[in-house]
């Protein structure tokens, strides 16, 4: 299943779509070609940006916020990007399995030591500071990391409440 994220700083999806005027400046400003523009004919979303973390995750360079003219994407710091969150499945992780000392997710995390820490200097652990950029999900050789978008996370919280 392909999952789509909104650019960092987009916040609530409905508010974001109200403010986006489809100018594409965020996609042009993206240094990692992570931001794509919706192609279809749906008048509500055509031309609005999204990130497909399976193809190219967001590296939290935070260039898209300042490029956005309407404030649909707010100019924020990395820690406030709030795109979603990631979960590590320890049963699948090389390090936890004892197979090999892999720290790919830790090395590649744009917020390493904050969003991903190494417990006892060895075991990767995703903290509550994770903003869901999707880089660890993209690089994990074992596909042990699940990514959940902000929207899915909120739906889950609502259904549990």
């Amino acid at each position, binding site marked *: 299943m392909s999952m789509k994220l909104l650019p960092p700083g987009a916040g609530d999806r409905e508010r974001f779509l109200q*403010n986006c005027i489809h100018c594409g400046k965020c996609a042009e400003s993206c240094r990692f070609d992570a931001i794509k523009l919706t192609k279809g004919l749906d008048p509500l979303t*055509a031309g609005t940006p999204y990130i497909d973390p399976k193809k190219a995750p967001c590296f939290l360079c935070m260039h898209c916020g300042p*490029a956005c003219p309407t404030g649909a994407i707010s100019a924020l710091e990395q820690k406030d990007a709030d795109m979603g969150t990631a979960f590590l499945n320890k049963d699948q992780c090389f390090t936890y399995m004892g197979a090999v000392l892999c720290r790919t997710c830790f090395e590649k995390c744009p917020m390493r030591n904050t969003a991903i820490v190494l417990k006892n200097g060895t075991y990767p652990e995703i903290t509550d500071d994770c903003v869901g950029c999707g880089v660890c999900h993209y690089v994990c050789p074992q596909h042990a990391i699940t990514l959940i978008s902000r929207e899915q996370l909120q739906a889950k919280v609502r259904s549990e409440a």
Partner: protein
Amino acid sequence: MHINRKIVRRICQATVALSFIAIPWLNMHDIRFVTGNLLSFEFLKIPFADPLAALQVWVSTGHMAITPALGAMLVLTLAVAMGPVFCGWICPYGLMADLVGKLPPRRTTTPSSKAWYIKGTVALIVVGALALTGAPPLLNQLSLPGWYTRTMQMLWLYGVIPAGFWLLPFAACLDLGGGRRFWCRYICPQSLLLQLAGRILPYRFRVVYDPGRCICKDQSPSPCSQACPYGLDPRERAIHPECTNCGDCVVRCAHFGHALSQGFAKRQ
């Protein structure tokens, strides 16, 4: 070759159309003195924005960021002084519509001044609905200059043509079947605010008619109204809201006594 304003206008239109092919390419190579598309555009840090896009965001969210507000103001200021010159001199679809208008089945448009009011009412209802429902800026999806420039962005960025691009040939087919500038007159929502802005001041840049020099008073349709892409009669005293100041009538009139000229004059 004599340089008349029709040639200048074609050069202007073509330059804009070609620039928007080049802009995404420049951006890709990190040259960013000019960014965006015709919905929101920035040149040397000066913002330009589609006034209708800014209006839609404003009514649907209740607030407006400074950049699009300033950009929309700049664009509207030009329209207050000169009417919807964007449509005749800048819009990439305007160039396409002008060229399509030259194709064989040359149906002259029947000048229906009511069309403008109908289109305005429909757009008003849609914008009003946005205020109530808080929906995204829907009218942007009907913007052909928007889709032309968005297509170029997507082509350079990902090598794909978005579905909205096909609105351009579709609109051209409508023009062929329904008369010149059919899309611009009856569907394009973007020109509305520019046309409204052109009606604010009592004085503005316009086509001026000197009846004393006119040698084809009795002709109907006159050569000037045949030259008009919208089929308007430039000899009317009040400016028609749709007149884009393209100047085609003035160029044609140069062969018929120089009765038409362009300049700042009373609107009525």
